[in-house]
């Protein structure tokens, strides 16, 4: 099993969720993050004093997936989250020791 992590533009969240759901993914976990990268932040002006804010709001998605599904899910993520403009974000996979479903205690792929 692997953990797929994606950092995407916030307004893409709904499309991505629907897309992976159609692939049979049972669930995912999402959190608000702030990204720093090639995409420039913005400037804020308060009473003439300018502040550059380097961070851009992003959304972080974590999906536990069975090894067999990882490749399909990653390519679907890359396809749907793309706008072609700077700041689209990153996807990476992390190997998992084991995983459990709290409700039933099931482990391994059954935990998904």
């Amino acid at each position, binding site marked *: 099993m692997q953990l797929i992590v994606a950092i995407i533009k916030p307004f893409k969240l709904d499309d991505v969720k629907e897309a992976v759901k159609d692939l049979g993914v049972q669930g995912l976990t999402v959190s608000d993050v702030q990204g720093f990268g090639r995409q420039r932040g913005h400037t*804020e*002006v*308060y*009473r*003439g*004093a*300018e*502040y550059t*804010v380097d961070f851009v709001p992003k959304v972080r998605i974590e999906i536990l997936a069975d090894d067999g599904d990882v490749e399909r899910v990653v390519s679907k993520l890359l396809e749907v989250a793309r706008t072609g403009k700077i700041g689209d974000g990153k996807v990476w996979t992390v190997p998992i020791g084991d995983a459990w479903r709290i409700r039933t205690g099931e482990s391994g792929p059954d935990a998904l």
Partner: protein
Amino acid sequence: MNTGDTAWVLTSTALVLFMTPGLALFYGGMVRAKNILAMLMQNFFAMGIVAVLWVFVGYSLAFGGLGNGGFIGNFDFVGLKGMGSETFGSIPALLFVAFQLTFAVITPALITGAIADRMRFAAWVGFIGLWSILVYLPVAHWIFAGGWLAERGALDFAGGAVVHVNAGAAALVLCIILKARRGWPREAMPPHSLPLTMLGTGILWFGWFGFNAGSALAANGVAAQAFINTFVAASAGMLSWLVVERLKAGHATTLGAASGAVAGLVAITPCAGFVGAVPSIIIGAAAGAVCYLAIQLKFRFKYDDSLDVVAVHLVGGLLGSILLGLFADASVNSAGKDGVFYGGGWSLFGEQVLAVAVVFAFSAVVTAAIAYGLKAVLPGGIRVSEEDEAVGLDLTQHSEVGYSLERV
């Protein structure tokens, strides 16, 4: 006693009391979330301590010996004894006491904007008590109660000098003594909630009608003139601030609209009942532009006037008081005088300059004395430690947190 006049001054007194919570929210929105409660508390505390001092000794020292052309009142009205059935002009004397009390409350509260995020609450308690008595009472007597400045002929319809120049001078001195906030001006300290500041602006504008039009102490033509003057000066202040901001910083901002309106309100305060509507637009517009530019002073001279009390209230109050010397029009208010533009010559102008200079100097000096006095007396000094400042004043001074918004 006139029930119509009394009704309007009752309403005005409630309106001006409401301005202090308005000021707390106006400033509160501009500080960081970890200091919101400390800013609100410093302002609300003024509503507590000043009122009690006022009833026992404050009113009497300020308004005792009315018109004695002197330096301070007397102890005739300690505890407001015997005032129950008295009248003051066409309103009950106790109502005049309450009306003047609301001015005594908001004046020290104005100082909190300059010293944001770094004064110990215990020190603020001591400071506001001493300042109200040693600075506000004398200055109020000089101008509001026919003291020596009023006798010389200085005009101040609703407190341009007594409230704004007075508080502005104290703000300048205290924010310098307290030294800058850690990280200023390099570190970004954006307002934590501009909607809160806009709410405060709405309450201040609403309450200011009581502040200026209430100072007519009657529901008459002068009150109506002061009302429309207050309205259009705030509007003109907003517009001119936005124009200058658009040109110099590239954007018309929401905080700019609020700041310009308040600058206009400050500048019209001394003039409200002595000038016409079009001059009020000119005074408001001048304040909007001048106060915007005055913000650069703190970067130029390196003092952390955190929320621009000097730029808006000191400069706005000075500007309004001095422009009154030009635009005063006796045909608007027989109790007023004619300024330079209305054939009154330069005598009023001179008195206005003298008045604001005296108030500035007196407030600055005595404020410094109080601050250094407290510094010596209070074990922990008057400034929070660097660790406490980093954690935030809400937690360290009041062991509270402003917001717990997670829906858990």
